[in-house]
Every structure is written in structure tokens, then in C-alpha cells.
């Protein structure tokens, strides 16, 4: 029993290390993906392209336009087309918003008569429209302050914890790590058994008295070790390359990663059990990955989703690990802060592995 387990693990490692493509898949892909994702996965709204229709042409209106480019919020463009063709630039996405400053803007401003400007947006990108409108309100408010010298009596003083520099890469790198770990482990294990079945080697293995349980565990452990190696590589790359701060305990993160891995590995094995070709297994793993990534809160908060969708996210094991990685790395969360997530992961790990074990029979019925 012990010999069998060690034999299986050794065999699996030999196979992985003799296969160049597999090695590339396991070690190079995650680093490339981490770098690519780290630079790309960024939904910050910046440099909004703003068409300017300034009918006032006064020093005040110019000052307002100037103010929009503060903090890289907007990139104002002087327009050459007529107002009635305003939509053209929206339709081919060369502009996101347009501001119209009426001819009496400076006049009214001087007379403290509350002038009106118009802001027209390409609403198809809901997010940048909402945030851009907010930016504009802020900019106009502080512009106004300069002319009226009025300080609003009620204000909020904000105190931002954990990521005060507002670097989105700090938030994304932990998420990418969770994503990569899930994708790779599900993908590899889903191929594990079906590959042996397709190639024919499973037949010889099943005719030995090895216990089904031992066989599954022997398939699982090598990929668990690879997964843990993966997380170390990805985290090290993230911390060194993107300078992501690591506030909490790496050991706690490592331990919980080990706990989490049981679930994606179990799911992969389950796929491997119910499919008959590698191609099918790849499709299953892929299907799962897409679902897991999109419902994990990876790039948009779960609280934004409709309520029924939020309930669905509870089914997604990656959701909990995503919270764990982010909480430990960014907020220094400790085990008591994470009891709920850890509890659910233990439950999922046990049930999914049992399901795989039950579904796996050494004899075809």
C-alpha cells in the first residue's frame, strides 16, 4: 500500500519531467500569464477621451477644459466636427464622452448665476460612463470653489486602509495566483486518468490488486505538489516583479492553498473519470475554469451581481480561495478572520474527493 503509493507518485513525476511540453505548460505558462495578466487586468477608468465643444471660448471655459486632464482622468480633444455629428466619434469608439460649454458660460459664472454645461456620454460602456460622470462632478465642484470661495460645511474625511496607493495590480496579482492555480490543477488532473485510458496504460494498472482509493490519491499527490510549487513561483514572481506587498503570513497562505487544492484536484479527477478522450476532458476543464473565474469576484465584486447570481457563487470553490489569498496578502488576515471560507473549503474538499472515489470503479460495468 505504501510502496504502491510511492511508486505511483514517482512514476507520475518521471512522466511529467520527461515531457517538454508538459513542463512548459506547468512552469512557463503561469509566469507568462502572470506577467500578461498583471499588466492587462486593470479596469481603472483613466484617460477618458473627451470631445470638447466650447462655444464660449473664454479663459474660464479653457480653464475648465484644462482642469479635466488633472490626474489623467480625461484626455480632452478639441473637436473639428459639427455638433450634430457628435455621435460619429462614439460609434467607432474614438471618443467616450463629450462636453458642451454654452456661449454664456463665463458670463453667468461671473454673475454667480449657476451656469449649466452638458455632458453627453457613450453609455454603452456603463462603467466608464458612471465613473467619468463622477470625475466630472468632482472636477467641476473644485473648479467652482475657485470662483465662489464657498466651502461646503459638511464633508467626509476618508481613511483608506490596505491599498492606499490604489494600485490595482496589488489587488489583481493575488487574484491571478488563485486563478492560475485553479486552471492548471483542474486541467492537469482532468487529463490524468483519461490519458492513461486513451493510451491504454490504465488497463495494465487496473489488472493489479491496487486499491482504487490508492490509485486516486497517487494521482492527486503529484499534482498537489506541482500546484504548491506553482503558487510559490507565481507569488514570488508577483512580489518581485510587481512589488506586491505581502502583509500576512505566507505559511498560513501556503497551508490554506494546500487545503484548497483538494477541491480543484478532486474536480479534475471527476472529469477524468466521466470522460473517454483527452479532448473531452480538456473541454470539461475549460468549461469549469470559465465558470469559476467569472463567478469568483476576480475582476468585479460579487456584491455587484444580481442576488440569484450571488447564491450561485457560493458553489464556486475558487470564490473562497480568492477571498483567502487577497485577505492574507493585502490585509494580513489570520485564521480566525477566515473561519467561514476555511470551513466551506474543508466541506467541499471532502465531498468532491469522496464523489470522485465513489464514481471510480476498477471494473467496467
Amino acid at each position, binding site marked *: 500500500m505504501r510502496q504502491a503509493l510511492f511508486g505511483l507518485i514517482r512514476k507520475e513525476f518521471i512522466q511529467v519531467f520527461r*515531457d517538454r511540453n508538459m513542463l512548459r505548460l506547468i512552469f512557463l505558462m503561469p509566469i507568462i500569464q502572470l506577467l500578461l495578466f498583471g499588466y492587462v487586468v486593470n479596469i481603472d477608468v483613466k484617460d477618458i477621451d473627451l470631445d470638447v465643444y466650447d462655444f464660449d471660448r473664454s479663459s474660464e471655459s479653457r480653464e475648465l477644459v484644462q482642469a479635466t486632464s488633472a490626474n489623467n482622468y480625461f484626455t480632452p480633444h478639441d473637436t473639428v466636427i459639427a455638433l450634430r455629428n457628435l455621435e460619429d466619434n462614439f460609434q467607432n469608439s474614438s471618443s467616450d464622452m463629450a462636453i458642451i460649454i454654452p456661449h454664456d458660460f463665463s458670463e453667468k459664472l461671473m454673475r454667480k448665476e449657476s451656469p449649466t454645461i452638458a455632458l453627453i456620454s457613450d453609455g454603452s460602456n456603463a462603467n466608464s460612463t458612471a465613473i467619468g460622470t463622477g470625475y466630472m462632478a468632482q472636477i467641476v465642484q473644485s473648479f467652482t470653489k475657485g470662483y465662489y470661495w464657498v466651502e461646503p460645511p459638511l464633508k467626509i474625511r476618508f481613511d483608506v486602509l490596505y491599498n492606499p496607493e490604489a494600485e490595482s495590480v496589488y489587488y489583481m496579482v493575488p487574484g491571478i495566483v488563485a486563478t492560475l492555480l485553479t486552471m492548471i490543477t483542474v486541467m492537469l488532473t482532468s487529463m490524468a486518468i483519461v490519458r492513461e485510458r486513451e493510451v491504454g496504460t490504465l488497463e495494465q494498472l487496473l489488472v493489479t490488486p491496487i486499491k482504487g482509493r490508492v490509485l486516486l490519491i497517487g494521482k492527486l499527490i503529484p499534482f498537489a505538489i506541482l500546484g504548491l510549487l506553482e503558487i510559490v513561483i507565481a507569488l514570488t514572481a508577483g512580489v518581485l516583479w510587481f512589488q506586491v506587498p505581502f502583509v500576512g503570513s505566507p505559511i498560513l497562505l501556503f497551508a490554506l492553498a494546500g487545503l484548497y487544492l483538494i477541491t480543484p484536484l478532486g474536480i479534475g479527477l471527476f472529469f477524468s473519470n466521466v470522460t473517454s478522450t483527452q479532448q473531452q476532458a480538456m473541454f470539461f476543464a475549460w468549461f469549469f475554469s470559465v465558470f469559476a473565474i467569472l463567478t469568483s469576484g476576480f475582476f468585479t465584486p460579487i456584491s455587484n451581481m444580481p442576488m440569484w447570481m450571488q447564491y450561485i457563487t457560493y458553489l464556486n470553490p475558487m470564490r473562497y480561495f480568492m477571498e483567502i489569498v487577497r485577505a492574507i496578502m493585502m490585509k494580513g488576515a489570520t485564521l480566525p478572520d477566515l473561519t467561514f471560507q476555511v470551513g466551506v473549503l474543508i466541506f467541499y474538499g471532502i465531498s468532491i474527493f469522496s464523489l470522485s472515489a465513489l464514481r471510480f470503479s476498477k471494473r467496467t460495468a
Partner: protein
Amino acid sequence: MSHAVEINKLSRHFGSFKAVDEISLTVSHGEIFGFLGANGAGKTTAIRMLCGLLLPTGGNGTVAGCDIMKEPEKIKTKIGYMSQKFSLYGELTGRENINFYGSVYGMNKREISSRIDELTEKLQLQDLLHRQSHSLPVGWRQRLALAVALLHQPKIIFLDEPTGGVDPIFRRKFWSTLYDLGEEGITIFVTTHYMDEAEYCGRISIMHQGKIVEMGKPFDLVARHKAENLEQMFIGLINERGSSGA
């Protein structure tokens, strides 16, 4: 434990298709039993049931004294199996393959290496131990597969077309090895499409469309059907029954 293999009306259906249809046979200890039949006759399906890889849909029987229906895992400790398709790990060398299967059968390092020494002598494995097995010629691969099947010193071995695609010299050597094994008291259950090989067997059975249609000593069968040789008898028998199964 009277017989090595003893089955009674064993069947396997795939849907409405009867791949194996109520076959009964007994094989004594130390016998070389030839399991003949045209392509698709159901030989592989029958062997897979005997080895505990496939659940029969009907009938009963024992292999090495263990019940086929109830004790498949116990059977597996007592038998060796060479499947029709090469099924060892191509990326692993011969020795790594043997080490792996040794550990799966619960043998420790010392047992495995002394067993490798024995088998190397018996099967001339020396040249293939250090090469990755996907790069081996077919005949060499089959010797390696036989070594794995014999690793844990089983009393019965099931060989499914062990000499398919192998050249005549290798085949001759292979069969002389089987004979030696038979002398040692190992029961050999073997399928083949070569009639010269069938002649080496103590007894043979002929399967056709899931049923066993003939069984006996090779030369008794030739005589009974008044044929010149085994090949003629085989072809005659199959033609007589119609070859819709092929």
C-alpha cells in the same frame, strides 16, 4: 482448488449485442490453453472478464479458486495479464516500468531487484532495461510486457495476442519461453491468430460470434474434422457457420 480456470455460461452483453454468449470451459493447472477465434469473436472481452476488468452480465466461474463475480480484486493478486495493446508507459524505461509495477504489487526494492535479475536471465531483458519503452521494437516490448505480467510470480497468466506483429524468430523464442513457464507449473491462457502457435498448446478452444464452437487437443480436432491441418480446420469451421461476425 481443482482447476485454474473454471467458468460456466459466462456472458457479456453490450446493449443487445452479445459479445460473449454463455461460454463454459475449464483449464487445469500447468496447462497451456489456446483461445482461438476470428477478429471480433469475443476473445478479448472474455479475458477481460476473467481478469476482473469487466463485469460479466451473466454466468459464473472461478479463476485461481476465486469467484469472478465477487472477488475480482483477489483474482488480481494471483494472475498476470498482457493486454492485446501494448500498455506499459512509453516515457518510462524498461527498468522504471518494472520498478513501478513491482511497487504496485507491494514488493519492496530488494524483492524487485532480485526478481529483475531472474527475469533478465529468463527473458533476455538486459538491452531493454535502460531504454524508454516507446522506442523499443515490437518484439522487445512484448518481452518487457511479459516480464511485467510475471513480476509477482502469478500462478496463471493471461496473454492476449502476445505475438501480434512480431517476427518469426522472436515468436519462436517467445514460445519456447512460454513452454519453460509451463514446465514450472504456470497455467497459460493465450490467444493467437497463428495456427503454428496453436499447435504448441495443450488444448485449444475456438470461438465464433461470442460462442465456443469447438474445444480439445489440437490434433484431435484436426482428426475429428477430417482436415489436413489446424488452419484448414479453422477456416472450414468458421465458413461453415457463416462469417457475418467478422
